[in-house]
């Protein structure tokens, strides 16, 4: 597990100039990064502090990530030293050194607290968003409401009291607290205050949701990971928790943030490939990319040790080739016109170093150029292909100018022999969704949706793993239950939008994490919902059963639904429609489930019920709980059957009431 230092100052509030932000000289930044790398860290975040009353456009991210060449110039023996320290720490030599951008907002007034929402374009331009609360109100707001990733408290000058409820609320929301150890190292007076104040936080968080970073504008206050871990014993943090705070927590946080930023509803991701690639030869390279996909790569600023060594060799041989091309791409990118192929040309002669990143940049640029209206023209897929490659689908989308864009969709689970079918839609927000549906009944629960909302000025991260991203089965089932939620509430209640959606997901995830019993109950009730819902939709659509293997059906229905959704304006609404579509398909994929409502033979009922619940229990990795649920909902359904017509009429009201009861 690599170590991270998520606070390397780009600008920092200086005590000499009365809290005004001072920029770190470029030379010092290079030195800090070099030292961090040498000490064995595998990732740093360049921190930009904002102190003004209002955020303006010019506060958005302008931090240039450091290029490999400058590092090598600053420390010629860097690569061997890095390798030496990494070996001692047990970090693999091949781990790339990552750079992120981070903003720290000084939080004082109410208005500033309100500005910290997920729609803020300034904050969106950074990878990590942190706040530095300066008074009690700001701290409470940051803990309970504000859309931030890190709360960075200045322990050497604490202007408010830490409140236990606030801290607990922040942990529940998944906000991380930061402890800067540079204050510990400065002088005895500060050390006293930091230890006194931070001990309380450490005690309350118990090392959970805690990250430790340097935050020092000088190299002398940077320490190696082992020393930092030991230093935290002064704050009452045990060694393994401190180790987690400097490595695992940071990694989890980064993975979460990047997931939130680059995935729609943290689940759906879409990747566009440039039209210059050959259209049908995609399987081999993309599936390879998925295997390599990295949840914590920000897509740029990564540097590999071997590149470093190569660059060093280049400097020793001749001055002309002193920097490696792969890394200079990031700095060159800004000067380039927005044509994707230019970059590929640059990278063309050095494919082994950073091809995925280049491709991604390419793709995002390409995406910008695309016209907003996209209609689905053709969907080509072959069963043989899918079986072989484990259902990687190719869809072609014709644009206005009839240019064909090949898209590949989605990593798939290896073990499932599901057949996939995908389609890609782009709306006016340049957000693209891919919905991939498994139409095989055996893999019905594996409905795998990935979408990405692409931010325009960010290159996407390389998408390269077998499975979109690691997700626990519980989380997955939560996603699906939430989808059910959405469906139910769609009928009557208007949705709040993306934020509320995320909040809901997090909320139920936390419930599920807390208590197994709760989870089971929720699952059971939701499942009942699910069944009812299926019943209703099936009647609406006059769906014929037993067609689960027909490939054309889902696409046909989806196109219908897409046309409908074309009327709705907001991208969020489109997203919801997609959810609906996917839910529809998952329900279609269980034809037995649909029929058992209509057929009244009790034996088949039980049988199909069992089958359905075995699927759900697979989802939860708990067969036992599934059976319990099966029993429950079976009883429930028999009770409900006489009321069926009534139920159909009053479906909305019942779901509302249940929701109310649950709440």
């Amino acid at each position: 597990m690599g170590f991270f230092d998520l606070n390397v100052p780009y600008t920092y509030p200086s005590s000499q100039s009365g809290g005004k932000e001072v920029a770190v000289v470029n030379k010092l930044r290079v030195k800090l990064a070099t030292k961090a790398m040498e000490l064995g860290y595998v990732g740093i975040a360049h921190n930009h502090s904002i102190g003004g009353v209002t955020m303006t456009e010019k506060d958005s991210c302008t931090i240039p990530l450091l290029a490999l060449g400058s590092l090598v110039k600053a420390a010629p023996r860097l690569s061997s030293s890095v390798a030496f320290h990494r070996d001692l720490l047990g970090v693999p030599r091949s781990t790339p050194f990552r750079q992120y951008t981070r903003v720290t907002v000084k939080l004082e007034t109410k208005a500033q607290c309100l500005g910290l929402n997920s729609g803020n374009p300034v904050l969106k331009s950074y990878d990590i968003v942190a706040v530095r609360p300066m008074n009690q109100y700001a701290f409470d707001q940051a803990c309970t409401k504000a859309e931030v990733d890190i709360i960075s408290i200045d322990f050497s000058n604490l202007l408010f009291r830490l409140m236990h409820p606030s801290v607990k609320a922040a942990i529940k929301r998944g906000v991380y607290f930061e402890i800067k150890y540079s204050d510990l190292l400065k002088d005895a007076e500060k050390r006293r205050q930091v230890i006194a104040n931070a001990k309380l936080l450490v005690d309350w968080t118990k090392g959970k949701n805690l990250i430790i970073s340097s935050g020092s504008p000088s190299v002398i206050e940077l320490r190696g990971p082992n020393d930092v871990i030991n230093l935290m014993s002064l704050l009452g943090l045990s060694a393994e928790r401190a180790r987690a705070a400097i490595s695992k927590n940071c990694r989890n946080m980064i993975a979460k943030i990047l997931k939130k930023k680059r995935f729609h509803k943290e689940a759906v991701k879409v990747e566009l490939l440039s039209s210059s690639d050959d259209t049908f030869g995609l399987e081999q390279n993309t599936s390879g990319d998925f295997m390599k996909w990295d949840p914590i790569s920000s897509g740029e600023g990564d540097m590999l040790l071997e590149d470093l060594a190569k660059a060093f060799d280049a400097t020793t041989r001749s001055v002309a080739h002193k920097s490696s091309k792969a890394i200079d791409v990031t700095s060159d990118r800004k000067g380039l016109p927005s044509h994707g192929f230019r970059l590929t040309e640059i990278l063309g002669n050095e494919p082994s170093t950073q091809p995925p990143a280049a491709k991604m940049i390419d793709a995002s640029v390409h995406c910008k150029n695309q016209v907003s209206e996209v209609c689905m023209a053709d969907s080509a897929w072959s069963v043989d292909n899918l079986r072989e490659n484990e259902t990687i689908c190719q869809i072609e989308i014709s644009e206005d100018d009839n240019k064909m864009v090949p898209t590949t969709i989605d990593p798939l689970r290896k073990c499932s022999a599901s057949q996939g079918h995908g389609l890609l839609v782009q709306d006016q927000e340049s957000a693209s969704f891919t919905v991939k549906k498994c139409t095989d009944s055996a893999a019905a629960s594996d409905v795998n949706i990935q979408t990405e909302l692409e931010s325009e000025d960010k290159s996407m991260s390389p998408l390269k793993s077998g499975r979109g991203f690691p997700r626990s089965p519980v989380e997955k089932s939560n996603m699906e239950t939430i989808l059910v939620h959405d469906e139910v509430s769609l009928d009557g209640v208007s949705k709040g939008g993306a934020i509320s959606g995320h909040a809901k997901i997090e909320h139920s995830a936390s419930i599920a994490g807390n208590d197994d019993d709760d989870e089971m109950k929720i699952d059971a009730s939701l499942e009942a919902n699910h069944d009812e819902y299926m019943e209703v939709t099936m009647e609406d659509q006059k769906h014929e059963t037993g067609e689960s293997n027909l490939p054309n059906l889902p696409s046909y229905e989806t196109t219908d639904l897409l046309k409908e959704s074309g009327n709705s304006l907001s991208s969020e609404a489109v997203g919801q429609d997609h959810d609906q579509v996917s839910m529809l398909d998952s329900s279609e994929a269980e034809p037995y489930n649909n029929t058992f409502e209509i057929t009244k033979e009790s034996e088949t009922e039980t049988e199909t019920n069992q089958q359905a619940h075995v699927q759900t229990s697979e989802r939860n990795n708990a067969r036992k709980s599934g059976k319990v649920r099966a029993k429950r909902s079976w009883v429930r359904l028999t009770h409900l059957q006489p009321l069926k017509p009534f139920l159909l009429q009053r479906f909305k009201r019942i779901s509302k009431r249940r929701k109310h009861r649950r709440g």
Partner: protein
Amino acid sequence: MVGFKNRYMLMEVYLDPDKDLLGEGTPVILTKLNLSEAIKDSILVNFGECGLASCLGSLHVAYVNPVTKLCIVRSSRDEHRRVWSAMTLVRSVGNCPVVFNLLDISGCSRACRDAALKCETEKFNQSGKGLSEEEIREMNRCLDKLKLL
């Protein structure tokens, strides 16, 4: 089984990391004396007289190499975290700002010696070309001492 247990910490010392020291002479020559002085000062400041007194029984700078700037500090097992923290909090030796960085920690002198030898060779190879005759001689003397540890 031994009743009294020690910890041997192999530390790396960065001298004046804020400045570039390429091709310059070192601003201070590390010796056992000034290192132990700095560590004891730090313990006194951070853990007080009692803390210093309890550490003092076993605290010993066993080995210093001024060329590669490695040193081995011995401490009793009960107090070694405290000593280690104090070393982390050291800011200067003499007038020169320093940073201590732990490379290896082990329970017996033999294991520590092996680790130290490995690190010494590694470090020596890293800075092998830029060393003068005098430094290489010093280096060899240190390695001999290390082997006797």
